[in-house]
């Protein structure tokens, strides 16, 4: 019993220490840095000013932020529209097909996502698989320029993040009682009306959490934009990385980081509120 208690304490203290050292303290440092100013010698001159946040409101910086949100929103939409039908089929599939399909969803995780992103260049290149096929079939006369476009970034992000949309949707659809659908049809609703009035509202927690899991990482996954989008910084993640590694303007990068974190926090609160309201309604 004595050693048991010691082990428990050790694990808890260890975890807390780890979290404090590698998550809390760095975040505090970034937070403090966002109020400082850049200096050639020390990277950061400590201080307290909102100067960096004001600079973020510059037209050029705002544009990057907005386009990043737009891109991520588009990725979320693509993922939602692709994942919902798949998750619905998955939830209705019989064993063993359901397990096979779930394995298909999980298989990409076995390969590093950076490697998979590079693999996409092999498909999107001017001499890539897609262009070879299109040229071979005579559908296009000249290879399409797909690489280094926003479309390529959207495709890459959607591909990488799709499982994070499928899994919560699958859980929500699998939990959906078929009786609700039958009751709706029984009361005169067509399949389409049943979908909008019963299935979508009752799977909303899955939709919202899937969207969160795609939208938030979608803002920050700078390497996808780097590999498929070229030199142009399309994501807020690229911008932050550039401030730290290229421009060496740490305070501005820190301010952008804090803004991004705050944005995520606000969305998490909204999600928590909406899901707790839905749960209160569905506790039958």
């Amino acid at each position, binding site marked *: 019993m004595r050693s048991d208690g010691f082990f428990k304490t050790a694990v808890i203290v260890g975890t807390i220490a780890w979290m404090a050292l590698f998550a809390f303290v760095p975040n505090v440092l970034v937070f403090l840095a966002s109020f400082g100013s850049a200096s050639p010698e020390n990277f950061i001159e400590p201080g307290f000013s909102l100067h960096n946040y004001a600079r973020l409101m510059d037209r050029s910086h705002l544009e990057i932020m907005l386009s990043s949100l737009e891109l991520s929103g588009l990725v979320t939409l693509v993922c939602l529209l692709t994942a919902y039908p798949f998750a619905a089929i998955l939830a209705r599939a019989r064993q063993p097909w359901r397990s096979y399909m779930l394995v298909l969803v999980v298989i990409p995780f076995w390969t590093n996502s950076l490697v998979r992103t590079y693999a996409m260049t092999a498909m999107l290149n001017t001499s890539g698989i897609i262009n070879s096929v299109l040229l071979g079939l005579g559908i296009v006369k000249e290879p399409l320029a797909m690489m280094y476009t926003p479309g390529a970034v959207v495709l890459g992000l959607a591909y990488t993040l799709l499982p994070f949309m499928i899994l919560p949707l699958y859980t929500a659809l699998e939990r959906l009682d078929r009786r*609700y659908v039958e009751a709706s*049809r029984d009361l005169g609703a067509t399949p389409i*009306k049943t979908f909008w009035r019963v299935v979508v509202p009752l799977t909303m927690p899955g939709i919202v959490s899937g969207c969160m899991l795609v939208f938030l990482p979608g803002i920050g996954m700078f390497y996808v934009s780097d590999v498929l989008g070229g030199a142009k910084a399309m994501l807020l993640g690229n911008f932050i990385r550039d401030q730290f590694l290229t421009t060496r303007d740490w305070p501005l990068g820190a301010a952008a980081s804090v803004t991004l974190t705050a944005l995520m926090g606000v969305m998490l609160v909204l999600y928590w509120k909406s899901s707790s309201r839905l749960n209160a309604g569905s506790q*039958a």
Partner: protein
Amino acid sequence: MNDANVSSPTIPVVSLHEVSKVYDGQHALNGVSLDVQRGEFLTILGPSGCGKTTILRLIAGFEKVTSGRVYIDGQDVSGLPPERRNVNTVFQSYALFPHMNVFENVAFGLRMKKRTEAEIVSSVGKALRLVQLDGFEKRMVGNLSGGQQQRVAIARAIVNRPLVLLLDEPLSALDYRLRKRMQLDLKHLQRKLGITFVLVTHDQEEAFSMSDRVVVMNDGHIEQIGTPAGIYEEPRNLYVARFVGEINILNAEVVEQSEGSARVRAQGLDVTMRTRCAFAPGDKVHVLLRPEDLRVETLKDLAEDPELGDSFAGGRSMVGTVEETIYKGATYDVAVRLDNGSQVMATEFFNEDDETVYFRAGDRVAVSWVEGWEVVLPHEE
């Protein structure tokens, strides 16, 4: 609620013709034919897995028949999806929409029919008053008790004024007292609305207390259709007899057969009993007796009271020993081991005037019954 759907009164409101349903190679229904009359309260009674819920789902349109035809109001509905059938279902688990309040749940069907808002408000209000839930409009369904959810489910269905209301074990989730009350409420509601009710249950008491007609099912087919009294008093076979209550089954042999009756010999009995079946002398039969139809007297009393003794004479009584008595409140059961080894159960009422009339284990008794209350069936086992 009054302008219920007008249609020809002569054709059955629902009709099943030789309907079979196969799931995964298993026959859930096997050649079932059934007519539901307009305005009646019909109950489908049977153990779980007998196919009774399948019938309901076929009528509602959630399942397709493997073979046979389903007609609603004379129209073949085989190709019609549920939303285009003029029937509504009260589900066993109610299936109330958890993301809507009581009003929106009840209004759902009317909204699908694109009724005006004023019409919806008035119809929903009427339906909720009918189930005594007025004032509950804004409540979320998750916060209601089981009995209240049940009533919302009924209101949600009847507000559409369906031709037929299908109820799938609607009371099974309620506790005993609430169930008793809801049985009465449902019956009154059905009379008031004049809508045809088809209810599915495994509880024979529930079936009997509510229905005009009862359909007894077993293993995918119909055993018997009749009024509750008809089924209880004149079961067509041993399965029905056993399913709808306690029953004593005596094995006997036919001695003589005449028009409408047969002389039967068994266990010291030699009686002429009325029967609609045709037997030949020597045929083995079952004599069925309900416990409440049996009369039990001690041999001592019979000897002391000549008048009583006479009524037990003439080959209409069996002698045995009381094994135990089981107190039931208003009545008590007497288990009697007959001298030939078989056991019968008799239900007796307490006699206020005579406190000594209570049997004890070991009492020697004679068992008889009211003439004409027996049922004779061909031997089955």
